[in-house]
């Protein structure tokens, strides 16, 4: 490394797993002496961690790559992430891109960049391929750190390109996970998010997903644990019992995708609506305020008005506090690409708007129930006026006035009101004096 630090900028698109992998790369470059700068600032290296889950993600990724090259002429542009897997040859043929690195080799990007600055041009295919080799995330980035336990998916849902771009399901050995958790906690993190592509299918030796969660919860320390996106299959009573542990946050992002069994089958999902319903009921019997959020796809091939109505009904029935609604878009190479009865764009847009209205109403109703209750908030930000913001254990956004306390600390807050509209709805509270 020269005396003057090389500058590196990152841009991430897509899922929490991608965000985690970028965070780990940032930490890796930071520790190696690079200066990490904002994406809009001039840099010697720009890394774009792309997404390809929808057409819109492709478009966004393409735009960001162009922007990175335009703003940093003569600099090194490294493109990685799922789009790099899906369109490898096309991207490799573009002069504005220096290196295209697939997901499997993403963790070795620093090796590639270091070599480049030492005058050694490596082909990315010669890099080490290990999807769990990422550095532990440094505490300076966020108050919440992901813990990657799994990668890839073997489900082959008919709409999904992920098995083609993330590869087959692989699980990280449990001892490595525990080591990673300990390092992450030692770096000062107070909240861990268990992450992967299909974490419910964790399988290493005789250990399953519940064993991983339990082992993490058993690690001593003042922290809490969240579970990221989960498929509603493959877990039972033991999973429910884990939520009795005070460190495990009462929130699940459980992917429903459609309220219609007919559509779920066409999507090749592994569960029926009743199964989803029974999971939600089991949790809500014990914890009536348990927070469920979900993904729903609108306008999947063959989705008629009745099917769509069932999705709307599901939002009401399950009282989701947030619905990530996707308009279905054709992904090349998936089974759904070859399905008949594609839904017109106009219909998808209209259904998407209806679903958004419905989910915003449910969000308001869900958040309202916390007025008068207490939440334990992990402070993520404190603004100049002394307003702290963060999330309560139910993954609800909370703001409150503080004086003399710092970020990344837990505080009991009594909720007094709800402010804002739609996605910016936030609970406002008062610090509970002990």
């Amino acid at each position, binding site marked *: 490394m020269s005396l003057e630090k090389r500058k590196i900028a990152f841009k991430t698109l897509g899922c929490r797993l991608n965000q985690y992998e970028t965070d780990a790369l940032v930490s890796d470059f930071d520790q190696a002496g690079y200066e990490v700068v904002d994406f809009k600032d001039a840099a010697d290296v720009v890394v774009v961690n792309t997404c390809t889950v929808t057409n819109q993600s492709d478009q966004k990724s393409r735009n960001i790559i162009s922007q990175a090259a335009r703003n940093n002429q003569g600099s090194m542009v490294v493109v990685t992430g799922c789009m790099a897997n899906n369109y490898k040859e096309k991207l490799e043929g573009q002069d504005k891109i220096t290196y295209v690195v697939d997901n*499997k080799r993403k963790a070795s990007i620093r090796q590639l960049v270091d070599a480049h600055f030492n005058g050694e041009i490596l082909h990315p295919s010669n890099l*080490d*391929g*290990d*999807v*769990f*080799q990422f550095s532990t995330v440094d505490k300076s980035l966020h108050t919440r750190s992901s813990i990657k336990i799994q990668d890839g998916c*073997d489900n*082959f849902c*008919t709409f999904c390109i992920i098995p*083609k771009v993330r*590869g*087959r399901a*692989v699980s990280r050995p449990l001892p490595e996970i525990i080591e990673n958790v300990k390092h992450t906690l030692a770096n000062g993190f107070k909240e861990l998010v268990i992450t992967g592509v299909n974490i419910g299918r964790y399988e290493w030796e005789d250990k399953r997903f519940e064993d991983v969660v339990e082992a993490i919860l058993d690690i001593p320390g003042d922290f809490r644990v969240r579970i990221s996106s989960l498929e509603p299959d493959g877990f039972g009573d033991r999973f429910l019992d884990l939520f009795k542990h005070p460190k495990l946050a009462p929130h699940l992002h459980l992917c429903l995708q459609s309220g219609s*069994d*007919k559509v779920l*089958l*066409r999507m*090749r999902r*592994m569960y*029926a609506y*009743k*199964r989803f319903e029974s999971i939600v009921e089991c949790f809500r019997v014990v914890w009536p305020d348990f927070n469920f959020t979900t993904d729903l796809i609108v306008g999947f091939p063959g989705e008629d008005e009745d099917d769509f109505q069932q999705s709307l009904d599901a939002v009401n029935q399950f009282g989701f506090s947030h619905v990530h609604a996707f308009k279905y878009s054709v992904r090349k*190479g998936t*089974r759904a690409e*070859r399905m008949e009865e594609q839904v017109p764009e106009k219909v998808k847009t209209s259904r998407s708007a209806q679903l958004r209205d419905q989910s915003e109403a449910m969000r308001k109703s869900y958040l309202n129930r916390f007025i008068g209750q207490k939440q334990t908030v992990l402070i993520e930000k404190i603004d100049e006026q002394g307003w702290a913001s963060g999330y309560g254990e139910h993954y609800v956004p909370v703001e409150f006035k503080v004086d003399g306390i710092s970020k990344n600390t837990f505080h009991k807050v009594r909720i007094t009101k709800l402010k804002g509209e739609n996605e910016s709805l936030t609970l406002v509270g008062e610090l509970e004096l002990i």
Partner: protein
Amino acid sequence: MQAIKIDESFYKVKEVRRLTDETFSLRLPKKQFKFKAGQHISLGIQGDYQSREYSIYSGEQDEHLEVLVKEVKEGYFSPKLSHLKPGDLVEVNGPFGKFRIDEKKVADHKFVFIASGTGIAPFRSMVRTYPELDYQIIHGVRYGHEAYDKDEYAPERHVLCTTGDKSGQVHGRLTKYLKKTKFDKTTQFYLCGNSNMIFDALEVLKDKGFDRDQIHCEVYF
């Protein structure tokens, strides 16, 4: 740290076995490939960027790895597969999937396999893998000649339902047979085929009082 293993390799086609004008099986050498009956693989053709998923048609102990393919004339992939010759290279990834027999139930449970068209593939694999299995196959096709490798199954275990001719034991959809038939309470049902057939068959079985946990589904690709 040890790099992850990438489970993919190329196989030379051994034989393209014609079953009907449209349907054929592709036989590959088995090499070290290990799978569980009911699982599927992802199949690619050398030099082509696309791949498709196919259930494995052969048994776990068979000397070759086999998949069952129906050619979609206007399709992209299956016509290319149908033109393969012995010695051509295909890429195999996998195996994938949880659509498998619960081995603990083999000795004391009845198994009912419900298939439409080439959805019979995983069931042939299961029958060849577990010779002691107490099973019945209910196969729905349009015409009788689509009863692929019918002679391999004991006649009393194979019920053919045909909608386009009267050559099957049942003339009509397989749901017609399901509705009028009694099954043991503890029967394990395995359904494989297109999503419409599976949806309708599920409804019939649920109406008959069977628990969803007894019903295993594989929606066909």
